[in-house]
């Protein structure tokens, strides 16, 4: 089994106008989906993300960050185990947020560091 991150992408501007309670009440219930993934041994972890944070570059730290305007900004993630990327996609397709058109899922294989030489 390989690890994948299923990134949730949705309209951050829209969510930003809601209180946290309203935000989660608006979306479909994710509990059964997570539970069934856990039962099948595919679930590792994940959570929603707050809309605002800090955006850190070499020279500055921006409050809230520019991402609040994003139409398909990152609003959460899950880490799962799957046989291959096709199965990971099939799992993402079964996510209630995807099935209801509430959000988009980006499926990314977790890439281990390879052949890192010791730095001197």
């Amino acid at each position, binding site marked *: 089994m390989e690890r994948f991150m299923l990134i949730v992408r949705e309209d951050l501007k829209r969510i930003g106008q809601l209180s946290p309670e309203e935000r989660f009440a608006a979306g479909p219930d*994710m*509990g*059964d989906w*997570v*539970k*069934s*993934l*856990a*039962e*099948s*041994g*595919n*679930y*590792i*972890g*994940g*959570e*929603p993300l707050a809309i605002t944070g800090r955006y850190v570059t070499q020279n500055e730290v921006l409050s809230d960050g520019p991402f609040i305007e994003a139409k398909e900004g990152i609003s959460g993630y899950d880490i799962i185990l799957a*046989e*291959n990327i*096709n*199965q990971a996609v*099939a*799992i993402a*397709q*079964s996510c209630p947020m995807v099935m209801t058109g509430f959000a988009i899922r980006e499926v990314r294989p977790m890439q281990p560091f390879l052949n890192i030489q010791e730095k001197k």
Partner: protein
Amino acid sequence: MDNVQQEADRLYKQHFGKLVASLLYTFRTMDPESAEDIVQDAFSSALVDWRLKGIPTNTAGWIYTVCRNKTLNKLKKDKWVTAIADHADRGSTETNYSDSVLDDYQLKLLFACAHPDLSPKIQVVITLKYVINLKVDAIARLLGMTIDGVDKLLVRARQKIKDEKIILEEPHPEALKSRLSIVHKIIYLSFNEGYKSSWGKEMMRQELCEEALLLNKSLIDSRLGNKDTLALHALMLFNSARFASRFTASGELVDLENQDRSLWNRDLINLGRHFLAISESEIISSYHLEAAIAHIHCGASQFVLTDWKTIAALYDRLLKSNPNPFVELNYAIALYYAGDKNAAFNLLNELQQHSFLNQYVFLNLALGKFHQLEGNSEPAAHFLHIAFNQTHFNKEKDFIQKMIDKL
């Protein structure tokens, strides 16, 4: 009901899925929907023909022959005829068709359902449909889904099956080996769906558990299985042994602590022990660990005599290979009963921070129960009320209400 109808019903119940499976295997280009239609059609013909000419001696063989002929006709009509004759005559004549022959088809079909590109849920749904031969409404009830939801999954699965010939192509020997772990998972999940206490009629759930055991047994007998198959078998036997004690005569839920242990089936426990013993292996799977935990429960003559320390250690090990918050909850429960109460509460409090687990009835139920045992009735009531509101199942609500009443 007349004899003809009775015999047709019996045959339908036992053979519908097998007939569909065998058609899919004999005619590789066919899709599952057409195969189902043809089998359905053959049963209609049987009702008419048997009433006119009497019931044949080998009814299963009769139906199979009709299915095959109907398929050949359909294929000719559809101009799909590609090297069919060769397939059509192989091992499918009336005389050598017996109740047992198709069990191999069933196993092959199970490996086909274990396609690594399908999600685990869809793998289970198509296994229940095509291998275990359940109707859509039964699948919906067992999985706690709506009929519409199951249909939608099946439509999507059928499309994929059609596009990629998932059921139609027998996986080659190498693929069989690599699919074994998915097959284990399907059997394990199917068993659990039957075993879970919350929904479905009890008879139906027990039958599903039996089907899962039978599938696993044929896997063991086929020599395709390995040590994990044996450990999974032990696990399912230990759990089956406790099946009857989980409900009172009036259908109320009974937790492990209050089960009448004299109702546990000793024969199944001993059989489980046998399989656990022969499953010994250098590579320990999650099935080995779960079977070992179930074995300890089965061996305890009273709840208070359970070896919780070993169970906690086994959960700890399970977490290393299967890191997920639901296993952590079980670990916390074992820690509490093993006497490590601080660690248990720390872990439970930590799990409350988890965005999904704090929505989960059994976390709040455990917190409520342990606070109750510690004599903290205020937090106990708090958590039990949360738990009460988190379950939609009446049996669970009744169970929690009783705990609240006792406070």
